[in-house]
């Protein structure tokens, strides 16, 4: 006969019994710190924007200047993530599959956009691509302007997003099974055929994840963009900058509205990543 009170007690326990101490202290501190620093401020944003209502959000989003900045942010972020996807795959492939002098050094430098403060990246990109910079001057001879146009935003977002693609794809490339390649070759496939039909498909989930991470980061990016963008209203103004502009005009509801829309876009990207990874686990057995 088990005593019902004991069963009840065990069933009500939140955590499994353990000799290790400190659960209450560390778990409690984790929740409080997370709540105070992250959840409460974010909840305030959601609560404030719920005061605007969906119609209020729509009104803010369809203001011409806001709509233009959201379009600029969305499409250029997408384009930058596509460029990162293409070149990130090549960089990851080269760094994992080939050996050449300087490979380790290049590999370490891939993380530079994570480590270099965005303001520094911003002013150095602006200096490179301005009409008298290293890249800006030769391009100016062909009447190509990068700095202070939308192309400048694209360049900055490519810089910011590259490591996401490379670092997500690299481990999967190094885990590709040589046996599959050999089997494919033995069965008569050419090298290109093997690469496209046998080696790339398992990389698809990682590529998609890297793409979504680069895209989500680009949507929110501020520091590296504002120096090179020129920030011309309706043309090269990004959504995060407009939040700052609205705040400077004491238009807090306007800033809150744009922030909520941006938050929704980046959460959608996050959800996409999780769905891709769940699908990939089922389909390929890895993330």
């Amino acid at each position, binding site marked *: 006969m088990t005593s019902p009170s004991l069963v009840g007690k065990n069933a009500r326990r*939140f*955590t499994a019994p353990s000799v*290790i*101490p400190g659960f209450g202290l*560390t*778990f409690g*501190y*984790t929740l409080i*710190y*997370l709540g105070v*620093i*992250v959840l409460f*401020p*974010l909840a*305030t*944003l959601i609560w*404030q924007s719920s005061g605007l209502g969906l119609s209020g959000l729509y009104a803010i989003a369809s203001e011409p200047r806001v709509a233009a900045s959201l379009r600029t942010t969305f499409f250029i972020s997408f384009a930058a993530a596509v460029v990162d996807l293409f*070149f990130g795959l*090549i960089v990851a*492939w*080269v760094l994992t*599959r080939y050996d050449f002098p*300087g490979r380790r050094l*290049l590999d*370490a*430098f*891939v993380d*530079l956009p*994570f*480590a*270099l403060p965005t*303001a*520094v990246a911003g*002013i*150095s990109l602006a*200096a*490179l691509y301005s009409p008298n910079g*290293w890249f800006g001057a030769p391009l100016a001879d062909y009447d190509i302007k990068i700095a202070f146009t939308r192309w400048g935003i694209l*360049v900055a977002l490519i810089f910011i997003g*590259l490591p*996401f693609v490379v*670092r997500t794809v*690299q*481990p999967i490339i190094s885990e590709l099974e040589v046996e599959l390649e*050999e089997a494919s070759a*033995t069965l008569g496939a050419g*090298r290109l055929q*093997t690469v496209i039909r046998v080696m790339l498909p398992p990389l698809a989930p990682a590529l998609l994840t890297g793409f979504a*991470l680069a895209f*989500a980061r680009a949507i*929110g990016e*501020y*520091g590296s963009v504002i*120096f090179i963008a020129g920030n011309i209203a309706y043309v090269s103004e990004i959504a*995060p900058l407009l*939040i700052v502009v609205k705040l400077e005009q*004491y238009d*807090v509801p306007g800033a809150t509205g744009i922030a909520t829309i941006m938050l929704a876009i*980046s959460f959608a*990207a996050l959800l996409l990543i999780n769905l891709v990874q769940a699908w990939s686990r089922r389909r390929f057995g890895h993330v």
Partner: protein
Amino acid sequence: MSEIAVTSSGSRRGVNFRPVTQDSSFARYALIATAVLFLAIFLLAPLAIVFVEAFSKGIGPFLTAFDDPDARAAIRLTLLVAAIAVPANLVFGLAASWSIAKFSFPGKSVLITLIDLPFSVSPVVAGLVYVLVFGGQGLFGPWLAAHGVQIIFAVPGIVLATIFVTFPFVARELIPLMEEQGKIEEEAALTLGASGFKTFLTVTLPNIKWGLLYGVLLCNARAMGEFGAVSVVSGHIRGLTNTIPLQVEILYNEYNNVAAFALAVLLAGLALVTLGLKTFLEWRHADALSGRARRH
């Protein structure tokens, strides 16, 4: 006979036998050239120009940039902010990873997702949420003003925004690492009579020290370099609420290129040191860091 044995490994009669799993040398060189060129243009050039611009007028003007009291105040503030934000997130990272990795409870994966949340929030939005809570028109704004406490456009706001954007760094490094290591060693120590705190100090901490250092490095680099979030809450008061990145922005907008890039050299140097130590840790202590794929 022996001649064949020697040459058969490479080429025989001028014909190259390439393993079927290797790309043709043309493809290899083309891909390497593309990757190197792309990285040179998009990564190395932006890094190089920081140093070139900073020293473009020689070493004198570079050094003069640091005589400016505003620049010195910015450096002091950046060090102060990092000195608060990094330990705060270090303690949190230890508490979070201890409770998540050593115990099982419902909702664990939700908690891990929530800890990662600040990475998917735009820095500008991170600054904005604190304005909504503590700003003049914010939730606690009137109360704070009545009690003479200023958080936004002052140092506390900068510290809070920095803590927010660097929140997950230590925790996300330690959680997978401690989950991988399990709790057998701790259980042994406790059964043998060690106290909980002693177990942590002498058993857990030595096991996680490299991962901890790795997380702290990344956390510190971001804390000292954060721009967007800090820019929203700082108010840009010279000599008072400007961190190094904000001072760089002001100098750059005043066309004071040498001074702007001189301060940027400090941050680029920090980035290089961080990358160097990070690469060293990954190379030397790879097995002591978690084996999982990293993303930031």
